[in-house]
């Protein structure tokens, strides 16, 4: 991913007339995001927070250039909304919707491959470039412009870390919640690559969770390709491990998916690791 992907000059909101869509459109506008239009099929002509509503992205594109969409469409229709955005060649798709079925995500990942679109989410709090753009639901008043980049699988831990750093006077260049689902768009490695290559980023914060092997893969990438300092915390040190894994799942997941194992992998890769969120925030200092 390139940093220009997040410049978000012309943002639309899919599902703008729903409860979350309305509430968060107002918050995004207040944070300075240029929301030019929204969609809800069948509700063309309505207005939400002075933003015009259209039936479809195609209708918006007759009048506007669109570079980013933020999706609040309910889970049963999220696949169609993402397909619509891919078909419309929107470079950045941020899907906030929680509960998108796994089989829908398999189809979405197939459509994304080879398309010109990048997907953040689903089940993501979105992205904040403090002082510039809010693309999603991360509370902007807790952010502070600066040179630290945060990426997290957990929405609430994204807020927690951002707020903790802001309170210490450590500002953020990027705050990205990748979303907590098992199959998602952008992952840790895409974000680490973005952070490493952006000269406006001095240091990186990575927050993982138990389950899967994304943190191990991130650790491998950090060891080989990241020169900037990385601070990491993996949530779930006291969570019961493996309870949801079925027979075949356990066979497939050969690597240890525990917080301890992931923390160890990240530490071996050179990251500064903590075993609690408060410990993580204490670890991080402004090294400018």
């Amino acid at each position: 991913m390139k940093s220009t992907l997040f410049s978000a000059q012309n943002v639309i909101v899919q599902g703008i007339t729903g409860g979350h869509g309305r509430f968060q459109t107002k918050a995004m506008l207040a944070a300075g995001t240029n929301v030019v239009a929204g969609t809800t099929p069948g509700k063309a002509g309505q207005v939400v927070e002075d933003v015009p509503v259209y039936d479809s992205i195609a209708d918006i594109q007759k009048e506007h250039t669109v570079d980013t969409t933020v999706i609040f469409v309910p889970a049963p229709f999220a696949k169609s909304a993402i397909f619509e955005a891919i078909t419309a060649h929107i470079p950045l798709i941020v899907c906030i919707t929680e509960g998108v079925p796994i089989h829908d995500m398999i189809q979405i990942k197939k459509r994304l491959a080879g398309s010109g679109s990048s997907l953040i989410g689903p089940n993501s709090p979105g992205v904040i470039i403090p002082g510039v753009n809010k693309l999603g639901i991360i509370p902007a008043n807790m952010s502070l412009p600066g040179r630290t980049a945060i990426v997290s699988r957990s929405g609430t831990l994204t807020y927690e870390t951002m707020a903790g750093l802001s309170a210490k006077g450590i500002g953020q260049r990027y705050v990205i919640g990748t979303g907590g689902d098992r199959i998602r768009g952008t992952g840790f490695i895409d974000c680490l690559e973005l952070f490493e290559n952006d000269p406006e980023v001095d240091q990186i914060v990575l927050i993982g969770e138990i389950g899967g092997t994304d943190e191990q893969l991130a650790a491998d990438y950090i060891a080989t390709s990241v020169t900037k300092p990385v601070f990491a915390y993996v949530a779930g040190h006291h969570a019961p491990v493996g309870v949801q894994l079925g027979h075949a799942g356990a066979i497939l997941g050969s690597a240890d998916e525990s917080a301890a194992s992931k923390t160890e992998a990240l530490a071996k890769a050179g990251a500064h690791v903590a075993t609690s969120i408060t410990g993580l925030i204490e670890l991080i200092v402004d090294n400018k």
Partner: protein
Amino acid sequence: MKLLEYEAKNLLSLSGIVTPRSSIIHRNDSPQLTFPVVLKSQVPTGGRGKAGGIRIVNDKDSLQQTINELFELSIKGYRPQTLLAEEKLAIAHEYYLSLVIDKPAAEICLMAHNNGGVEVEENVAISFLNIAISSESVEVAGQQLADYYNLPSQTFVLQDLVENLYKCFVANDATLLEINPLVFTDDGKFVAGDCKMELDDSAAFRHDWNFEDKAAEANFVTLDPGGTVATIANGAGLAMATVDAVSDYGMVPANFLDIGGGSNTETLVAAFRRITEYPNIQAIVINVFAGISRCDEVARAIIAAKKQIENLPPLFIRLAGTNFEAAADLLSQENIPILATLEECLAAAKQEVSS
């Protein structure tokens, strides 16, 4: 959601996969069966055979006694509501076959092994056939399976089986579909001897699912029933981090609770009630950082819980994020303090626990 064996086999059968002739037995039924018959306890856990949950009955005389014993037998804490009675298969060989989702690759994978049965977990993962499968590749996958099992004469049969299995997996929004053993019978048929199936709860909106309730609630998990501190947080990550922090602070967390994004008063009060059932709770740490949820809704629920539940242990509340000011107003009217950080909550809870 994990299905019971008979529920999973019913879905297999509807997809054209052969299952043993069977009937279902509930408590107080007087079943008419053909002997010998295999009785299988329907519990949502593995290791049934070793625990005595699968019994072969050869005649009518011992039937009722065996049924009663199976209904009373607890396996890893589960007691069955249902028994599955099946014909006894004439087994020539047992294979392993499953479909799973390879999450990093976002693909459906077919896994197979030449030796099925209870010890399949001990096979080294590398020795499994493991191939990606999609609607376009079911025929190829069936061919590969026949080659792998070294059963060239069964190629068409296995292609048909793989096609039906794939259809069953996708149509039911399954995340795991495992046939183990896949029995090759003496008369040359493939029959699903046992089946494990898990469905994606997120897809419930497009199905008319009606399965036995397994009470698998992922949002509320007991970690230590003797713990002294209960935790309530929003979001799985923050809920895990809150548990980690309580433990790091030298206290024993009793539970993990993620109240999620749509926290209403009713569900939160119900959660408080469950917490008060733990015998040793001396403090409740509430840690909410609202994004899509709203702090004022959480505050209303806290106020309702305090009014409705007697002897509620002391609450140590940290709220932040969306609509914080409204929440602070509501709680201050009720003289319920909010602490600025999770650390302050932990420090205050620690005093309560050690006093």
